[in-house]
């Protein structure tokens, strides 16, 4: 208790004396650092940016193949509340048809950090994403209806496992569940169903292994690598679309540096509705709070 009080006093003194206030670094819950995952939303509020995310999707059942170029920006308004904006640009080749290109729609969101539990390396946030109608090329997949998607994101590290299971302590699980609510249930004669989206990422952190459990002597660049597998499924549940679940499994690797991370994953469809063959995604992701700690990387207010 005394030590906690001293830390609190030190934090207050740091806030007063240093150019910027003491702040928890992005993606940390106690000893655990959670990288920004590619497929599933992150369970933490942060100022960060993905630029670019390049995705070559598996071939679809009609033979078409889509390449997406995406960018996302998240800006912290307070240490517990952020605002997000993202957009993709698609390049679609279909057999016997002209190439279609264009934006796939603008998505904005806001997120609030519900809690961070340091001893148990756990965190969660609640958010609301909005995909806006007519903000892209309909032929490239942009929607002609607005969709509201409340979401819960969570993360849990397993550093609190007993010493006998120490080699499992670098594991962590993140995930999110969201429900899509189209504002219009029918547009241009097409029904727009409600969807449930659920995604998980299972990670094994080499940095955690070497700094918390056992230094096995891995050097640069292997000491910053986090192998992971992501899963995501989308299940419509009404308006004639029930039973048409689609999804992907994405094994890959994230290299997390001091200012940015690089991620690469294979994309494996879970069923024929989701495509066939193998796709891939690569992402460059910047930690704006580390790149610009006294500028745009700081929350606007410390409330």
């Amino acid at each position, binding site marked *: 208790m005394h030590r906690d009080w001293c830390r609190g006093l*030190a*934090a207050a003194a740091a806030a007063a004396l240093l150019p910027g206030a*003491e702040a928890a670094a992005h993606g940390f819950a106690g000893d655990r650092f959670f990288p920004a995952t590619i497929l599933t939303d992150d369970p933490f509020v942060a100022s960060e940016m993905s630029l670019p995310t390049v995705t070559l999707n598996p071939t679809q059942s009609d033979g078409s193949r889509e390449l997406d170029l995406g960018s996302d920006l998240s800006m912290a308004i307070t240490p517990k509340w952020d605002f997000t904006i993202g957009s993709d640009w698609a390049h679609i080749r279909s057999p016997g048809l002209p190439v279609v290109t264009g934006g796939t729609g603008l998505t904005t969101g806001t997120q609030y950090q519900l809690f961070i539990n340091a001893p148990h390396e756990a965190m969660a946030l609640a958010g609301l994403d909005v995909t806006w109608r007519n903000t892209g090329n309909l032929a490239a997949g942009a929607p002609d209806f607005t969709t509201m998607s409340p979401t819960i994101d969570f993360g849990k590290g397993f550093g609190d496992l007993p010493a006998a299971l120490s080699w499992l302590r670098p594991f962590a699980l993140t995930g999110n569940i969201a429900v899509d609510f189209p504002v219009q249930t029918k547009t241009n004669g097409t029904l727009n169903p409600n969807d449930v989206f659920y995604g998980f990422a299972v990670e094994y952190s080499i940095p955690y292994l070497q*700094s918390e459990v056992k*230094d096995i002597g891995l050097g640069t660049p292997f000491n910053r690598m986090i192998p992971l597998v992501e899963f995501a499924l989308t299940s419509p549940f009404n308006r004639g679309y029930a039973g048409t679940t689609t999804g992907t499994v994405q094994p890959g690797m994230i290299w997390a540096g001091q200012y940015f991370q690089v991620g690469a994953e294979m994309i494996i469809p879970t069923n024929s509705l989701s495509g066939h063959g193998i796709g891939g995604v690569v992402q460059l992701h910047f930690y704006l709070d580390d*790149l610009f700690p006294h500028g745009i990387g700081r929350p606007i207010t410390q409330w």
Partner: protein
Amino acid sequence: MLGHRLSAAAAAAIAIVLAASTAAAHAFLDHASPAVGSTVPGAPSAVTMWFTQQLEPAFTTATVTDAGGKSVASGAAQVDPKDPTELRVPLKPLPPGTYSVSWHALSVDTHTTEGHFTFAVAGR
């Protein structure tokens, strides 16, 4: 069109890195002596930790305790003034056993990080 989009994204990414010439990130533990999770044959005189960023000495702390939770440090943790990425905790003579290190670091960009690890001193 696709090539132009990719080029624009690459140019924007490079611009971000160039604009951030004064960046300083949170401090990760890079390595320690005794090494994390290691067993050493003799009692070390100190635990020394090296971090990936420079530390703020006034707000960076570390403790070393035995299996009963009692401190075995012979003095306060000190950031090396010549190498501000190095944090050292001097130790009392240690009998064989397992020891826990707990650190709390404030890097020069004011981000906090913390960590824990153990090392063991082997019996004769």
